[in-house]
């Protein structure tokens, strides 16, 4: 019996204790939001007393809100405001049972709108709610602004390198590959890699970009970012949970996220919302990395000129690519805080 305790029960008890660890802050809350067959995983982290909530829509498709709850930008924003990290349907720790045919941009938009309503019901109608979308979160976020009543619920929209027009971003990425690639080649920097990228870009017919070419533009975009010295190193983060307490660790979540990405990609690839941006009337902040090949800054320039918002601003980060929150966290936070304080 002694050995049974020593070798089996004791390790099990220690495992149980370790696994129960979670953030000790009383500013942390997790819950599921049940809507249209899905149980969407939501974590609220930060200063709820501020009565300012920023609902962050993650990138992907196939990402999770949890991945954004790390790094000094998150720590700084959570100190001032409550950050709401949503795992969109089919991704991260979100679960449920629904038909694959419901995986549409309209459904993702309805989820965002529903959660915005829930947050105001749960935390009070007097809270100030901002929507922040990064990358593909800019696709679903913009779609929600244009196709639901979410603008009635929020104080402002923050788009971070957001993919609100995929056909346009592919064209702009090709232009950047050609231009910056030529500059880097003339400087003799990473010539073998840049030559391949420039050759690829020169071979693309920008009037007819296929889904396969779109995928390669995305891959080369991330690679090109890594080849530039002008971009700061990404800062390390403080994960919100240890490995045992992570809400979405597991093979099931990885497979589901990947399957969701495959299901929504065809609709996403042709999502072009530039011509409708004039319907956005809420205060809007556009944050872009100067060297973002994945979602070119030209989309931010176009968006800020098109939205009908009274308070609108574009901030370009000179030492960033696709994720300025990681590469220039102080400047990123300053831009967000300035915008929120003006509009809360």
């Amino acid at each position, binding site marked *: 019996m002694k050995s049974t305790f020593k070798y089996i029960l004791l390790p099990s008890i220690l495992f*149980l204790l370790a*696994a129960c660890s979670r953030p000790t802050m009383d500013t942390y809350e997790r819950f599921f939001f049940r809507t249209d067959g899905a149980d969407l995983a939501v974590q609220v982290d930060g200063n709820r007393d501020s009565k300012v909530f920023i609902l962050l829509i993650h990138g992907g498709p196939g990402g999770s809100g949890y991945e954004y709850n790390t790094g000094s930008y998150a720590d700084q924003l959570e100190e001032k405001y409550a950050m709401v990290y949503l795992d969109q349907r089919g991704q991260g720790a979100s679960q449920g049972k629904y038909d694959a045919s419901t995986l549409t941009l309209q459904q993702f938009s309805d989820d965002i709108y*529903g959660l915005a309503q829930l947050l105001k019901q749960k935390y009070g109608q007097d809270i100030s709610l901002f929507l922040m979308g990064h990358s593909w979160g800019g696709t679903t976020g913009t779609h929600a602004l244009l196709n639901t009543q979410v603008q009635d619920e929020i104080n402002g929209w923050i788009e971070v390198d957001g993919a609100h027009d995929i056909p346009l971003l592919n064209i702009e990425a090709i232009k950047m590959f050609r231009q910056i690639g030529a500059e880097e080649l003339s400087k003799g920097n990473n010539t073998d890699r840049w030559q391949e990228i420039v050759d690829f870009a020169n071979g693309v017919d920008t009037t007819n970009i296929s889904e396969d070419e779109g995928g390669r533009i995305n891959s080369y975009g991330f690679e090109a970012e890594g080849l530039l010295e002008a971009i700061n190193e990404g800062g390390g983060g403080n994960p919100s949970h240890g490995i045992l307490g992570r809400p979405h660790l597991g093979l099931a979540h990885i497979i589901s996220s990947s399957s969701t990405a495959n299901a929504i990609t065809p609709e996403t690839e042709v999502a072009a919302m530039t011509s409708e941006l004039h319907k956005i009337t809420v205060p809007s902040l556009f944050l872009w990395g100067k060297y973002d090949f994945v979602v070119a800054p030209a989309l931010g320039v176009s968006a800020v000129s098109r939205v009908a918002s009274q308070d609108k601003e574009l901030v370009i980060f000179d030492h960033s690519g696709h994720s300025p929150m990681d590469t220039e966290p102080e400047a990123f936070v300053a831009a967000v805080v300035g915008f929120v304080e003006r509009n809360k």
Partner: protein
Amino acid sequence: MKKLLLSLLCLGLLPALYGQPTHPGDWALNVSYFGETGIHPGLKVGLSHTLWEKEKHHKRWFKGRQNRLGPKVKMYQLFGGANLAVYSHPNNHTGVLPNLEVGWKRINMRRGSFFGAQLGIGYLRRFYNVATYELGEGGEPDKVSAAGRGMFVPSFAFLWGKDLSVKGKTPISWHIKPTVMMLAPYNHTNVFSFALELGVSYRLGKK
């Protein structure tokens, strides 16, 4: 209480007298650490029943060993079982998984080591361990009680272990069992998950 202790003592002593692994008709009590994804801790308890067995003798390749140890003796067994696993995925859910299994194993009758494979079918009920809300008809947040999701779980597992009763009198075997589970349905699709079991089986004999 004394009766209970006496009963447990008898249950333990009787099989010990046999000094043999389980045979057809024997029951065994299984208790395992059940780690969903390996690290989400849980406990699995169940009974297994030996359904069939066949002993095979194989001549050893080396004559010296054949003379010294005699032939290789392998015991092939089929078994079935029913069990219940409960585990906790922190910040997500607590899982309750009743499960039926059938398996095959080959026991080395000199060392007691064995390996085998198992098929299972279960029904996993996940109870979320954080609150769940939905919007009511009037737009108010309704808290869903005992929220969670259910799914069928076909599974496949390999097992390795050692039956201590082969060499000694202890009616216990231990095993390690990596398991691949399908979760159906999960969101809009079916997905795979993984579990790791580390357990002991206590031979109860024929009941």
